[in-house]
Each structure stands twice: as C-alpha cells, then as structure tokens.
C-alpha cells in the first residue's frame, strides 16, 4: 500500500528504512508544511518495501512517500 503525502511540504525526518516492520499508527516520517510539523503515520501493519523520499526533500500533495507491503 502506497502512502501518499496529504499536503505539500518538506520532509524533515524519515524514521523508517526498507525492510522495517511497522504497525498501523507508527510514525513513518515528519513532514513540515506551513511551519507545522505533521506526523505521517502507517495506515496498516506491514513491512517497508520502498522509501521514495529523503530528508530535506520538497514533496507535492499525493506524492508517494513510502510503500508498505503486507
């Protein structure tokens, strides 16, 4: 399941890497937008199969951030 950015902004931290197991609600990364730091959480349990963004990167709305398998 791909996790998309709900808003445009800058990635200020990436908390997961490929192969990590996550539970629904775990914070995957922090996205700053309009000076607010937003936690992007895992929508489901699974294993991280892809991380498409790095710290400092600007992302658009609906850009794919992370892919979770399972």
């Amino acid at each position: 399941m791909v996790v998309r950015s709900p808003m445009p902004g800058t990635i200020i931290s990436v908390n997961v890497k490929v192969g990590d197991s996550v539970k629904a609600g775990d914070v995957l990364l922090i996205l700053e937008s309009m000076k607010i730091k937003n936690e992007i959480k895992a929508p489901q349990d699974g294993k991280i199969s892809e991380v498409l963004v790095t710290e400092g990167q600007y992302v658009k709305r609906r850009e794919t951030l992370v892919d979770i398998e399972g």
Partner: protein
Amino acid sequence: MGELMKERIEKLREAKQKAALGGGPEKIDKVHQKGKLTARERLDRLLDPGSFTDLGMLVGYMQGSPGDGMVYGYGTIDGRPICIYSQDATVQGGSIGMLHGYKMYRTVERAMDMRVPVIGIHDSPGARQVRLTGETEMPEAMVVEEKGGGSVFYINTQASGVIPQIAVIAGACAGISVYSPALMDFVFMVDKTSQMFITGPRVVKSVIGEDITMEDLGGAEVHTAISGVADLRTETEDGCFEKVRKLLSYLPSSCDELPPIVDTGDDPYRLIPELEDIVPDDPDIPYDVHELITRLVDNGDFFEIKPEFAGEIVVGFARLAGQTVGIVASQPSIYGGALTVDSSCKQARFIRTCDCFNIPIIVLIDTSAYAPGSDQEHAGIIRHGAKNLFALCEATVPRIAVITRKSYGGGNLGLGVVPGMATDFVFAWPIAEWGVMGAKESVRLFFGAEILKAENPEQFLTEKVKWYRDSFANPLVFGSRASIYEDIIEPKETRKVLARALNILKGKKMTRVPKKHGNIPL
C-alpha cells in the same frame, strides 16, 4: 367485463411484466456478474419499501426498448416524497435517446414543480450512438426534442437552489450522464464500479495518444480525492444509498422550507471539559479538527462532504439542538489548515449549498492563512480565494464562528471573521491569536537584527515571542481594544454558546440589493 377490456388487461399485464425486466434476464445476469444492481433493484433499495411509483415504463415498449433505458417516477425516503430516475444499462446500454432524455428532463422538472428533491441514478455512456442502417429515414437518435437529453442541463440549472439535486454514479458514465450530475448539488460514487469522464479511454487513446484505464481516468478515487468532481465514495451501492438517505435527512425538500428538526436527545447546553485538552497551546502543533467537531455536535454525528479532497478544510452536515448545521472547519493537521485553491472551491461550494437550503453555518477557525507559493499562485489562488470571499459575503443564512487558536493574515478574511463580513457572531477561545502573521514571524520581522546580535539568539527569541503573545496575540488584550469578538469563551462552553446563538438567529432575514445575479469569480 367486455371481451376487449379483458383482452387489453391481459396484454397490459404481460407488457408491464416484460417491461419490468428491461433488457431481459440475460442482460440482468450480466449486470449482476459485474457486481452491480439493476435500475429497479437500485430504486427498491434506496426508497422506502414499496413506495416507488413507476411512470412511463411502457415508453419505447413497442420498439423493443422498454422504458427507453430509464426507470423514473416518484417515491419516498423516510416518508418524505422525492422524484427519481434510474438509468437502465440493460436497455440500449443505458444510452440517452430521445425518450430517455425526455424522462430525465421531466423528472427534474416535475420535482421542481412539486418542490421535492430529485435523485438521479446514473449508469449511462451518454448520448445514444446513431445506428447507421443505410436507410434514408432519419435515425431516432438523431431526432432532437426540446425537452431531451442535452437540454437537461437547462432544467438542472433552473432547479438549482430550488430543490436539492442528488446524483448517484453507479456505472461507467460519460457525456450527459456526467455533466447533468455536475450541475446537481451532490455527486456520490461507488468504488471500482463507477467512473465519470467526458470521454472514455478509447477516444483518449486515439485523440491524444494517452494510454489509461477507466479507473485511472475517472474512477471514484480520482473524483473524490483528486478532481473534486464527486463528494464521496462508498464500497458498495447499498452503502451509497444509505449515504443518500442520510444526506436527505439534513436537507429541506426545497428552498421554501427549513431543514427538518430532529429530536436527537443530546443536551444542547452540555458542557464539554475535554475540549480544553484537544487544541495544543503551541500553534505549531497540529491536531485533527474532527476531534473537535464530533464533540460539539449532537451525538458526535458528522456527515462529511468531500472528505478526501482538500483536507485542509473540513465541511459537512451535523445537528446542533436538533437543527441541521453546516460545519466549515480549518484542519490544522493538513497543510496547517491553510486556504488553498482546492479548499477555496470546496468551502465556497459548501457555503453556497447551505445558503440555498437555509442551513446555518458554523465556522471553526485555526488557520495559518492562505497557502503561499508558485503552485498556488499559478493555479489562481487569488481568483479561487475570491470565489470563497464572494460566497461568504453573499450568504444570508445565520453564521457563527469560533476562533479556537490561530487566525492569521488572510485566513481571517477567508473564513469571514473580519468585522463587516456578515458573520453574525464571532467567539474566541482564550488562546486565540489574531494578527497579520504568527507571533514568531512577527518577532522575527521586527527584531531580526537584535536576534542576530543577541548573546543567546534562541533565548532572546523565546522571550520576545512570549512577550508578543502576552501583549498582542491575546484575545483579552485584542478584544478589549476593538469589538472583534462577541465574546471570549471557555472551550467547554462552546456547544452551549453555539446552541444559544443558533436559537436567537432562527428568524434572521437579510435583504440584498435587487439585481439579476452577482458575478462570482469562477
């Protein structure tokens, strides 16, 4: 009974039985195999049991096109009358021929005459293709009558603001079957089995060379999350019908009436102490505004419109003291609750919908202002933002605003809480901040040089921000100098304050300068 009467009754029964099967059992099986319901099954499930009255079912019968691909008539939902049509994909693929178009038109026209809501269930590829037979007679599909498929746009437009118009998209729809819904008040879609496009993948491929599936071109997700064409999607058709029934419960039957009042059993003056803990003091920390909405409204019941589109603004219907209210709330957890091109369209549309149907509006404000940047400017935030300002200044229904935390910059205007923008009551929570910009930004702007020179810049900034917040970004200070707020209230009192304000505003009447119509920026 005479022989002729007897014979005709028998023939009539046979004809009705046959017509009720539309394109026949084989085609019905095909519909079911796709996981869809037939036109008539849809009516049975949406309407109160046994309430549907069929009109014009024998139209096209002798030509082998029963109902001409459309079932229409009237029925009730929760005992309230509505007019309805349902396109029948088993007859000529549900395509819109002359008689089909006429029935569509008449359903809307009749609903408008009767002052009752109209519902259209759409499952049609659009206008019927002309079957070229080599004969010299004009094919039926090319005959255009005044009240037909294309002109349904005319009657949708005339009915707009008079009666609620609700479209369900229950199949792959194109042409008239997407533009007519787009002229209605609400569009609901079913996931995976419904699509909307002006033209399908085959033409897209041949005209511009793009390879795309029906789902990626105009599926339910596309229209609820990306384009904003549809208001919400459900997993099943039954789920969709449930949403339609619920939506109607909030709406009056026409603009002449007030929305129904429901005894919700929830004390309007209930105090809500937990509201003090939902909104963090620090304006840079987000929270989900749904937590606020569901606590404020009757029984936590909130019917959200466009939940997946432009999430920075949350809109939808709820009840307060049993009375329908439209909620417009900034969402700090998406885009800082900023006003964007998409959120402006969503907000303006919702405000106008409420205004059409006499639904008071409650605005909850915690916004960082209009979203800056080339994306927004180039997409026309000024034009779309203006649309929203227009909607706010034009609306005459009661409007009450609560500033829970931030209301910076243009956000004050975009949510209509600047005095003179016709919001009837503006209330502020004790941590409400009003200003051209936030405390930190204001301090940086005015003390930039001093911050740089300071021994400990971080500490200097923190102290200055605290000073600024106490002296300026403080509703007690601000509210005592100007009459911006009707009152500064404790969060726990919010529901009670809103319920009382709604009550005094019940008789609100506003007159406007007579004119043809305003020129809303589009």
